[in-house]
């Protein structure tokens, strides 16, 4: 048997043969080849993911389900997850991105949650590079067209430009849905004697073996053996959402599972394995778009906009009626049985048969060797004193604000409907995105962030910093972090140094989650992000969700008032390591990011939350990319006010103004509340920066610019 043709490794083949007690046939091998691909099986990372803390008071559903769920209070939960669609987006940017958005929405829907908000993480190559314009415009249009049509607002995101993504852009799609805790639909509750129902679009030859495709490096001449790409139909998805939620409200489904990678096989075997039942499927019952499809093609088709339902026979008629009303195809394709046998029939003949647990859990894990990169320490060398100070500070600040990764992303998010569903309190363009929940006081806040440059320099510290950035932003806004989801975008794990970097990143992220009691409730892994041109930067993307008890306890950004006192809270000495400033000046990423300080981070979050809740500040913003100077400039432009800032400098001016890292935030505080503010931050480094006044931004005598000349996102009124 030539198992390698199907992407199966020898030990995997042997494991399969042993579990079956016979030679697997071709159809089975094809199925295993896809189901045991990295994308579906997590065989290289499963054991690493165990390092993440995933328990907590507020965790309703942790990793292992379609998405995680956290408790928002009063019987309501937020289901959320982020997922990659990197490889498809590299090959067919528009369709790849669109189907990425559609896919994550179905993950959320599978829990019975109504999808209410999306965010997108975009990682593009250098702006001037040949393909970047085409890839970025296609991906952005794809995200927009799908999300807009399906009626789920895109409320925020993250966009990074770096040459390492030239050939291998990343698209990570995040979605969040709301569900009553007593109405969560599980994929683990099927019982023998129930019907397996396929709802949604017809099955065609789209994206067959797409999951396996996502598990190899991109090669230049991939054109020939490219799987036919999936086409998204947001119109069908919108109908599918409404139909599934209606089925759930009428309690007509026992269990539900979206069809993502590896289509019918993946979804049905997962339900069978998790529920502990067997399943018999008759593939001739599957509504097909192309008449002559072979069973393995039906098994692995990644046609979009389909859901798998488990239904009690007595409810079938009602289920069909709902499907008809929404003009969706709906067919019984099999039934659940006692035991754990999973078998596929085609025209009465058995074409594949194995224990249900084999496809999901049977793949032997791979422990790739890890080795600390030889040149890691070399990259830390950075003697700041040898760097010349900027000659023109105004110009430096202005250029920094125009750096692609820091510049306004308006051209992107203006293409996204960020307001549909009328819940968006703060949409894209703000440090955190905030939604209200109709009929309740509570607000949900969310952030998506990443810091690949620091992860590249020191993966442990960078991983911790990336997580910390999201939590700091939430805390400053007054949102108590409830949990996070992550997408681990990395190059091939088969390279020991790259594997080590990934492992350290995960450890760093885990350490920060632990320190801030922010558990990981869901996530996704995307490996093999490299091409002949090289590997991407290590890019863990973090999406963190928090809750604000009421509007009154939300602290906005960009709301300076004339006469307010400006403070920086947090350790005063940041670092130029991996900073946008250094990247801009030198075109090269170097230095050692700051050490991760768990107690300081926790202390920051505690005080920031209290600052927002007690209403002692007019405006607040965590300091992140571009450092303090960029944070000040953003607050000024958004507020439409200037400031005079002048303070003692404990280190080099550029380090303090443009350095990054650590738990820091910028607050503007009304004069009358200054004593309260100070007492709140007692025991934490606090630096008075100056005053909000006038229309000029003046910083320590070196920067002096009229605020209305700073690049700023649009302000209508």
């Amino acid at each position, binding site marked *: 048997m030539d198992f390698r043709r199907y992407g199966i490794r020898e030990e995997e083949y042997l494991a399969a043969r042993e579990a079956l007690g016979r030679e697997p046939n071709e159809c089975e091998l094809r199925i295993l080849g896809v189901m045991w691909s990295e994308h579906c099986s997590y065989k290289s990372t499963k054991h690493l993911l165990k390092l993440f803390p995933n328990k907590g008071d507020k965790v309703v559903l942790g990793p292992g389900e379609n998405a995680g769920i956290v408790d928002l209070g009063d019987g309501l939960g937020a289901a959320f997850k982020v997922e990659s669609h990197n490889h498809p987006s590299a090959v067919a940017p528009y369709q790849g991105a669109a189907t990425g958005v559609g896919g994550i929405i179905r993950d959320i829907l599978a829990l019975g949650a109504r999808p209410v908000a999306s965010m997108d993480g975009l990682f593009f190559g250098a702006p001037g590079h040949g393909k970047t314009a085409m890839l970025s415009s296609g991906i952005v249009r794809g995200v927009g067209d799908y999300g807009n049509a399906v009626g789920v607002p895109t409320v925020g995101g993250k966009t990074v430009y770096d040459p390492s993504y030239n050939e291998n852009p990343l698209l990570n799609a995040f979605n969040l849905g709301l569900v009553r805790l007593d109405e969560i639909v599980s994929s683990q509750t099927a019982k023998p004697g129930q019907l397996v129902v396929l709802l949604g679009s017809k099955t*065609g030859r789209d994206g067959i073996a797409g999951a396996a495709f996502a598990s190899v490096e991109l090669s230049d001449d991939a054109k020939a053996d490219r799987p036919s790409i999936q086409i998204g139909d947001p119109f069908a998805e919108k109908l599918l959402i409404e139909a599934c939620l209606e089925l759930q409200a009428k309690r007509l489904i026992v269990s539900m599972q979206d069809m993502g990678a590896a289509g019918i096989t993946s979804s049905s075997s997962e339900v069978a394995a998790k529920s502990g039942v067997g399943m018999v499927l008759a593939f001739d019952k599957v509504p097909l778009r192309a008449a002559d499809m072979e069973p393995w093609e039906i098994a692995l088709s990644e*046609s979009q906009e389909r859901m798998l339902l488990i239904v009690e026979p007595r409810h079938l008629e009602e289920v069909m009626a709902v499907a008809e009303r929404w003009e969706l195809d709906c067919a019984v394709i099999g039934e659940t049985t006692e035991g754990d046998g999973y078998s596929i029939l085609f025209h009465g003949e058995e074409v594949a048969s194995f224990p249900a647990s084999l496809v999901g859990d049977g793949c032997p894990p791979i422990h790739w060797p890890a080795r600390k990169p030889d040149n890691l320490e070399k990259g830390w060398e950075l003697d700041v004193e040898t760097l010349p100070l900027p000659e023109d500070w105004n110009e430096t600040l202005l250029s920094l604000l125009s750096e692609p990764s820091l510049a306004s992303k308006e051209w992107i998010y203006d293409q996204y409907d960020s307001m549909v569903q009328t819940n968006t309190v703060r949409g894209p363009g703000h440090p955190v995105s905030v939604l209200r929940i109709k009929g309740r006081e509570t607000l949900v806040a969310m952030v998506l962030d990443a810091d690949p440059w620091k992860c590249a320099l020191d993966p442990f510290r960078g991983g911790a910093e990336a997580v910390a950035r999201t939590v700091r932003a939430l805390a400053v806004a007054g949102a108590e972090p409830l949990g996070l989801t992550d997408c681990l975008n990395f190059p091939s794990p088969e390279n020991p140094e790259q594997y080590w970097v990934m492992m350290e990143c995960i450890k760093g992220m885990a350490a920060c989650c632990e320190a801030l009691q922010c558990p990981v409730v869901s996530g996704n892994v995307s490996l093999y992000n490299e091409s002949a041109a090289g590997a991407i930067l290590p890019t863990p993307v973090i999406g963190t969700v928090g809750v604000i008890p009421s509007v009154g306890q939300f602290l906005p950004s960009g709301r300076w008032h004339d006469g307010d006192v400006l403070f920086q809270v947090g350790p005063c000495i940041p670092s130029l390591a991996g900073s946008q400033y250094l990247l801009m000046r030198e075109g090269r990423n170097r230095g050692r990011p700051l050490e991760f300080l768990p107690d300081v981070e926790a202390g920051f979050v505690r005080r920031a939350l209290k600052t927002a809740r007690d209403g002692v500040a007019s405006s607040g913003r965590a300091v992140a990319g571009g450092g303090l100077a960029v944070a000040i400039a953003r607050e000024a432009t958004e507020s439409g006010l200037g400031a005079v800032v002048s303070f003692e400098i404990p280190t080099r001016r550029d380090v303090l103004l443009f350095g990054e890292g650590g738990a820091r935030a910028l607050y503007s505080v009304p004069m009358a509340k200054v004593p309260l503010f100070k007492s709140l931050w007692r025991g934490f480094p606090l630096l008075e920066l100056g005053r909000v006044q006038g229309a000029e931004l003046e910083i320590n005598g070196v920067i002096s610019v009229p605020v209305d000349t700073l690049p700023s996102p649009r302000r209508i009124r």
Partner: protein
Amino acid sequence: MTAWHVHVYIQLKDGVLDTQGKAVERSLHSLGHDSLQAVKIGKYVQLWINADSEQSARQQAVRMCDDLLVNGIIEQFSVEVEGE
């Protein structure tokens, strides 16, 4: 140098889901067009190109298709050239 009027017809490859065609077909049926068997929707692009010969105009049009107009993974196209 003559100006050539080039007509490009772009359609989805067979087997690729035609979301628009499907919706339009349904709508035409509901309007009573029962004799309709199928619908496929594509793009009709007209180019006006300066070139020395018909052949060169065609070649240029094909290059524009490859460069931008057509996504070869899901679409196929044909070209017709007309003198002006």
